[in-house]
């Protein structure tokens, strides 16, 4: 279900789901739980990868994974940690390296490993593919599809129409904080999607 559109308030949407901000009206729900009333409980279900995922540069990949799962209440053995990192597709020679030497793609893989370790039901992604090279972007797309088969609901905010069409089941186009269009990814071609996107943006400009 990727969203997109500039100044479309998609980060606001994600912040609402994370309980980082209070809704001015209405409510956000995860697993039938009102986020604002159950901040800690809803966070157990979700994993979040910010646009620019920052980890502790002085800790290694394994240590970062251990720390973030640990404070979330998951005690994991060394072999479990290694398994999660492997599942996320990080090359095994980077496991014991400090994050300070990692690229964005590698950091995101650690982020995915944190999500996997948390056994999250919901994955919130904010512009995950921006700044990734095509190969890393492709790998990331495959990873998301793998997660989908495991039953993880993914909400991805992106400008990458191609990746959205590839990965998503449903696509929503947001503008100015409103959901303007909802599409089923399988029903449309990439060209149609692009047109729909541009139309929505023009509509906004006409209103302005």
């Amino acid at each position, binding site marked *: 279900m990727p969203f997109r559109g500039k100044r479309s308030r998609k980060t606001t949407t994600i912040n609402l789901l*994370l309980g980082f*901000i209070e809704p001015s009206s209405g409510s956000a729900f995860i697993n039938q739980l009102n986020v604002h009333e159950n901040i800690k*409980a809803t966070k157990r279900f*979700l994993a979040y990868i910010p*646009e620019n995922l920052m980890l502790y540069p002085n*800790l290694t990949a394994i240590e970062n994974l251990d*720390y973030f799962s*640990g404070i979330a*209440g998951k005690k994991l053995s060394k072999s479990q940690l290694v398994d999660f990192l492997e599942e996320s597709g990080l090359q095994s020679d980077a496991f014991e390296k400090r994050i300070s030497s990692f690229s964005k793609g590698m950091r995101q893989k650690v982020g995915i490993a944190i999500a996997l370790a948390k056994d999250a039901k919901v994955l919130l992604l904010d512009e995950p593919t921006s700044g990734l090279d095509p190969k890393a972007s492709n790998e990331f797309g495959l990873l998301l599809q793998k997660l989908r088969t495991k039953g993880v609901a993914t909400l991805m905010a992106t400008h990458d129409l191609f990746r959205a069409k590839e990965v998503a089941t449903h696509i929503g186009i947001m503008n100015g904080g409103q959901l303007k269009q909802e599409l089923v990814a399988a029903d449309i071609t990439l060209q149609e999607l692009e047109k729909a996107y541009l139309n929505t943006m023009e509509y906004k400009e006409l209103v302005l």
Partner: protein
Amino acid sequence: MLSYNFKYELKLLLRSRWIQLLSIVLLLLFSFSTYNGLQKVEKRKKDIADAHLEVKENDEMMLKLLDSVERGMQVSASRWTIPTQPMAVGNYHPRVAAMDPQPMTFIATGQGDLFTHYVKPKVSGDDFTLNFAEMTSPVQLLFGSFDLAFVIIYLLPLLIIAFSYNVLSAERESGSLRLLASQPIGIQTWVLQKLGLRFFWLSILVIFTLTLVFFIVGINPFSQVTLFFGLLALVITYMLFWFALTFLVNLWVGSSSKNAVVLLGLWVVFVLLVPSMLNQLGNTLYPMPSRTIMINEMRTLKAEVAERQDEILDNYLRDHPEYAINDSTQFRGFYHRYMASQKLVKEELSPLINAYEDQLKKQQSWVASFKWVSPSIIVQESLNQMAGTSTQDYESFRKQVIAFAGIWREHFLPFLYNNQDFSQNDYADLPKFQYEQKSFATFGVIPILFLISIGLFAVGFLFSNQTKKEGILASN
């Protein structure tokens, strides 16, 4: 969460070299200040020993002179200094009334650079003209001395501020806060644990380096167990107070730079501003009576008294009939009149002296009632008390010296009024001053300071409202 924070906070602190840096800085500061304090104590001991030595040498001279006079030999000393006259002994051979340093004196100079540590009260001197003020360099007084108390009160908070002003804001600025906050944890709890762990490690470092420094400079801290553990408890509670402040600032303020400015502002207020303001206000509200006026008053009195000296002496002898019986010569000279009138002068001047003492007491109680405004005042006071250099200690010394001056004077009066010569046999009976050590060290402030700090933590927990958290997290 705590066990993971514990494990990784230590790793992070070691990898960012904070622990190593803090150990070295603490070791340097503690050893330099302890060394400085010990130097001061050594100088004080040496001054006192020199004074004793001088008295000893003078005494030997005096005994030789007495011996010669008693054998009927001619001596080359001036007539009025010959020690057969009791007043000559009382004036020219005073005893040393010294305040010996205590075992922990090196930790705080306290009032030690304002007051002398020994005086030699003379028979003809007046109590209030005894000068307890030390000659000091004003520069030294302005900057204070680099003693352990200075390191603890002034520098340790700065280290704490540098160590933990940005625990939360650094996470936000580096971007890891958003990931952290998406975990099912409370941010306040997380900050509290981080700061708690830093407090824990810094305490360990402080205890370890302090003990090490004490051993290095050759002090066995366990010979003064109560004081040493009292000192450690005091330092750690004071540190806890500063960590409580950084906790509040971390939660309530925002960016790292703002946090740093706010914390330094608090440091200036608590460590510099409040203590000096209290002092200034104390001086303004309860000014000390002028010493010059007191001395002028005394001189006027003495001039008046000098005119009625014969009358005063008669009255005095009437009050002390024992002096009239024992003495057959009934010789009355200058000192007979002087000593009798001195007593009168003292009585007449007592309102002035009481006024001085009153003001001193008022100043002290003024500071005492407002000292809780700043924990640094509390800690400074407690450290001075442990060191035996507090205001109370010097007060007690002053009172003991004045009492001794009275004893010294009284000792010579029977010789004087009986017109009895001072002889070698009387030497052994000369009164000696023994400083009676009263410890003013109290540890009652530690639990109170502890509760204040815990209270601050609680305030941070209860009032760090959600809106602030939003402000931190909503920005990208």
